[in-house]
């Protein structure tokens, strides 16, 4: 099924379209009329300074926050996302910065958390272990020693990989990664970014929140920039360079980048 989606033309209807999203907390307007497209088979990087509203937007899509106004279109159809369960039903999974793994459980137990397979009322451990093992090797997450080791004994990159693999396990269509490489070393960052590419190659829509422009330009197909709750720029990655992204993030606009994008978009390599 994943391969079929991967073949879909890039120009097709985005998997998720967000239109006119407003969200305020008391007097603070966190998001103002935000539009966002997340196409399948592409990595969309969501950039923005602290407080720009990246997390709020993610949590609105994940069903954790209820937007005040705005619409979601899933594969072109209007949908309501009122709770994390609604999001899960559509096939949206968020891999949070704090990883959302239980340290005391092992890899298999974490990957199946909340969706355990049961047989006659008892957990079907053998079946779950086989499925988890298959998913991990499919994503080439092979550095873990045993999938029965507690998550507490994993390195940061391995934990991130398990969290991502958990998302993949469920035939998801949209994975949102919250700062997936924050606090990781060079080798582990590479491991996680490779994993992000593999998700995209499987035809998933990936949204990656990141401060790290190296990571953004390394894997992103599209870049969306939030500034003070407004979506100030959103285009394919080749339309940006580092300078313009930083300008958008900090000032909310960039005439230079717009001229550059008009004139020489095709010359910019996105890395």
């Amino acid at each position: 099924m994943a391969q079929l989606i991967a073949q879909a033309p890039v120009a097709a209807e985005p998997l998720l379209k967000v239109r006119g999203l407003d969200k305020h907390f008391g007097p603070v307007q966190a998001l103002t009329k935000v539009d966002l497209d997340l196409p399948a088979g592409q990595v969309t990087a969501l950039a923005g300074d602290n407080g720009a509203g990246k997390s709020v937007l993610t949590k609105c899509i994940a069903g954790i926050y209820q937007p005040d106004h705005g619409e979601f279109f899933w594969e072109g159809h209007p949908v309501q996302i009122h709770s994390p369960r609604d999001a899960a039903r559509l096939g949206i999974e968020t891999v949070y910065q704090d990883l959302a793994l239980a340290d005391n459980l092992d890899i298999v137990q974490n990957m199946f958390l909340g969706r355990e397979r049961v047989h006659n009322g008892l957990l079907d451990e053998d079946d779950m272990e086989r499925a988890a093992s298959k998913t991990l090797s499919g994503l080439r997450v092979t550095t873990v020693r045993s999938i029965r080791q507690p998550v507490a004994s994993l390195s940061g990159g391995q934990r991130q990989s398990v969290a991502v693999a958990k998302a993949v396990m469920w035939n998801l269509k949209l994975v949102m990664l919250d700062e997936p490489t924050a606090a990781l070393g060079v080798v582990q960052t590479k491991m996680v970014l490779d994993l992000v590419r593999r998700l995209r190659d499987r035809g998933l829509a990936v949204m990656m929140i990141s401060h790290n422009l190296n990571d953004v330009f390394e894997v992103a197909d599209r870049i969306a920039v939030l500034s003070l709750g407004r979506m100030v720029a959103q285009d394919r990655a080749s339309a940006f360079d580092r300078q313009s992204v930083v300008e958008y993030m900090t000032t909310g606009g960039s005439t230079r980048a717009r001229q550059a994008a008009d004139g020489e978009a095709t010359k910019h390599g996105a890395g």
Partner: protein
Amino acid sequence: MAQAEAPEAVPDPTAAADAAALELPPEIVAQSLGQWFRAWIARLRAGESGVLPVIAGLILISIVFTAISPNQVFLSAGNLVNLFQQSAVFMVLAMAEGFALLLGEIDLSVGYVAAVGGVIGVQLVQPTTARWPWWGAIIVAVLACGLIGAWQGTLITRLRLSSLIVTLAGLLIFNGVVLILLGLGPFSGYPSLAGENNNLQVIYKLMWGTIDPVVSWIGMAVIVVALGAVLWFGDSRRRRSGLVAPPVSLTLLKIVLIAVVSVVVVAICNVNRAAIGTLEGVPWVIPIVLAVLAAWTILLQRTRFGRYVYAIGGNREAARRAGIKVGTIVTWCFTLCSFTAGIGGLLYASYLGGMSNNVNGGQLVLYAVAAAVIGGTSLFGGRGKVLHGVLGGLVIGGIYNGMYLLGLDVKWQFIVTGLVLLVATTIDALSRRGATGGSVARV
């Protein structure tokens, strides 16, 4: 973070393997018994000790008390059975407390909730007043306790109150309720289980009744064979499908160990331990404790509910995000905690041969928490097994029993039990710190 990267950055594969071996349960990395043993030693050094400290503690208690008790009476058959009967209440209450501790919560009310269950059971079978059948009394007693737990759990989850405060209030409230219940009927606050009435006798025998020696042997054989078969076929199936499984020798060792322990226990119980006449056979309380142990072990290790309990104890936010209804699970845990306390209360009433107002529920709950922690359950949530409560209860019972044999005052028993609890929590805190140091920083 630097430590976390080490296993991947280090080019020497053996060094990386050694580093990882320190943190892993031996059964998942070992291919043979020798490897398993070495991995186990490595883990001990790293502070991941499992049930070892409590087993060592039990052996130490046996040696010390045997050496200094008069005529080495500590290890006599009569005293060992007595010891088990004394420990049974602590064991069941510790298993009850485990439900709260696994969540990282605490239930201070288990002592008096148990007493409520005990009083209800004793009052309902009184042949002069309530005249209930024994089974009705038992069911109502444990269900009443379960309701108490559901009520406390609801307060904790729906009103977001601290479990410490809610159950501390429960400790006081149910102390009062026990006194009210004791005052009912013409028993001057001391409803007893003495008498020939069949219903009274059944409750009394929960602790003091014995099973015929021959039946004991047969029952033991059935249990050991069933348990052995489950272990053997489960491990073989996993080994055949290439899943993570212990080596054959380890599976065999476990089965042999279970068989040996069972035979020794039944053999001890089947010795005639009466000074005059015959008193032999396995006391009812042993299968009762084993039934609670088996039921709650299956519930916590083999069902979704149990998995969610551990997940909530390990990372409540992760559990919530995984779609687990945290409030419901927590409420059920407090319900099951009080329900199990009710079973403990019935055993306690049986042990005392009735109920009176000198039931000290405050002390019972402290022993219950101590037993669970001594057994290896973490106070920080997410780590521990039902078996830990049983082993910890045996330690508390052993100290209690040994001190009594030595003619030492109850004050020394308090002091020694307190010191043992300190040692156990120190081990818990140290092993937790060890686990954190070995991997990434907690977020």
